[in-house]
């Protein structure tokens, strides 16, 4: 999700179940006068709650432009305690002091989606006082094998049909390796066993955010296993918030991990399953029974272009292409002496005729100015 429009934030602001839990935790754990970091503040809801409950100073950090609306909310709600709004990612901003508490909602679907948690670890290492508190401070993932006949028919097997007389079956191997974001209602799953917990994570001490786990499920209900469904619980210090499909819904979804070939399971069978995900990497899941084994990976859900791949490998020796050379030339002109229009017109004149696309130059100049100029952090 890009989080750049109000509609991206609507579901979170009006997720009363989530927000009431955060509010209780903020009330219980933020002491009057505390300095708080609202990490990935969005519209600033958690920081505003902290101000409401007596925080002395709140830093609200978010690269999304919606953070600027938080400023208005602070004025509108007449908070007199101090708030600092920083439109930036946490990795590129500078906060001039250590904080007593870090508030965040960096737990994605099935905990690791979106890869926001590494930024929480960064923020903790950089800015949290030694005895500071984190909300949330812990999380744990859960998963369970399920039968989800209708969903599987609709999202996976539908590609085997031939709509409009066109054979789409080559799509199926890709979508069966996708992680599918679903709500409990959409999946309408039958659980074939108790769920298993995996990957308990303590945000106060974790250094990497990975998953490399295995579970054994004792099948308690016979049926066709179409895949596994995953979710997480997060701890707000004294209370747990569960995104389980069996709990009242919040704005998070569950993740369905399909199997390429559904398997028939009988009550009493054992199903072994593994789940692997490196930081910023792909989800890979496998299941095996006594006589059957299969593995899926989101790596196989999008074809990697060999040209792109070369750039991903460690032994690639990168060399600037034409747009790269243009960017370099522009960056050298951002020295404080030239206005945007002067830069654009100087460049348009200096470039060889073939490369003088004014629109391209204009776009790139403005993008680089946005990204790489401005006042240095204090």
């Amino acid at each position: 999700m890009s989080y750049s429009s109000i509609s991206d934030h609507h579901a979170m602001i009006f997720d009363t179940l989530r927000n009431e839990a955060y509010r209780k935790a903020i009330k219980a754990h933020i002491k009057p006068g505390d300095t708080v970091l609202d990490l990935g503040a969005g519209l600033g809801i958690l920081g505003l709650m902290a101000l409401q409950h007596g925080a002395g100073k709140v830093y609200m950090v978010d690269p999304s432009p919606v953070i600027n609306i938080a400023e208005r909310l602070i004025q509108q709600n007449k908070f007199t305690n101090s708030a600092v709004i920083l439109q930036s990612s946490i990795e590129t901003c500078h906060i001039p002091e250590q904080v007593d508490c870090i508030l965040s909602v960096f737990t994605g679907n099935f905990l690791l989606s979106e890869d926001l948690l590494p930024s929480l670890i960064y923020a903790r290492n950089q800015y949290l006082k030694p005895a500071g508190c984190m909300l949330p401070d812990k999380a744990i993932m859960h998963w369970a094998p399920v039968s989800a006949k209708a969903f599987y028919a609709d999202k996976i097997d539908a590609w085997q049909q031939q709509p409009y007389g066109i054979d789409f079956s080559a799509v199926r191997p890709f979508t069966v390796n996708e992680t599918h974001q679903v709500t409990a209602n959409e999946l309408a799953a039958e659980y074939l066993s108790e769920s298993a917990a995996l990957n308990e994570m303590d945000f106060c001490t974790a250094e990497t955010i990975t998953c490399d786990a295995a579970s054994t499920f004792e099948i308690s209900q016979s049926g066709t296993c179409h895949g596994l469904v995953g979710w997480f619980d997060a701890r707000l210090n004294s209370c747990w918030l569960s995104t389980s499909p069996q709990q009242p819904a919040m704005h998070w979804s569950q993740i369905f991990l399909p199997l390429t070939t559904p398997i028939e399971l009988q009550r009493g069978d054992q199903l072994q399953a593994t789940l692997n995900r490196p930081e910023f990497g792909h989800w890979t899941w496998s299941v095996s029974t006594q006589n059957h084994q299969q593995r899926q990976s989101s790596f196989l859900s999008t074809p990697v272009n060999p040209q792109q791949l070369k750039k991903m490998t460690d032994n690639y020796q990168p060399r600037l292409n034409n747009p790269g050379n243009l960017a370099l030339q522009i960056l050298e002109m951002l020295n404080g002496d030239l206005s945007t229009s002067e830069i654009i017109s100087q460049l348009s004149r200096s470039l060889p005729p073939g490369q003088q696309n004014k629109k391209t130059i204009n776009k790139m100049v403005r993008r680089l100015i946005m990204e790489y100029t401005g006042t240095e952090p204090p």
Partner: protein
Amino acid sequence: MSVRAQNYQISPDAIAQQVSGETVIMDLASAVYFGLNSTGSKIWQQLESGAATSTILAMLADTFEAPHEVLATDLYELLSELENAGLITKSTPR
């Protein structure tokens, strides 16, 4: 046992994807990617089917006009590169 008799098997941590005749391999353990050109891809397919090194070499000899020694050197080079990357492991010759 001579190096040449050495057979290999694909590591359980390797996941491969074919794109327009080339192969991209992801190593689950390190999250590092590895690319193979079309010849490398054919070798990988042979490894996937459990082929012995001598069988792979014979396949290369059928495909390319180059002298046997050259093909063998190229093959062993690729195999040791894949092994160093943790994508294949030595297996005992059958």
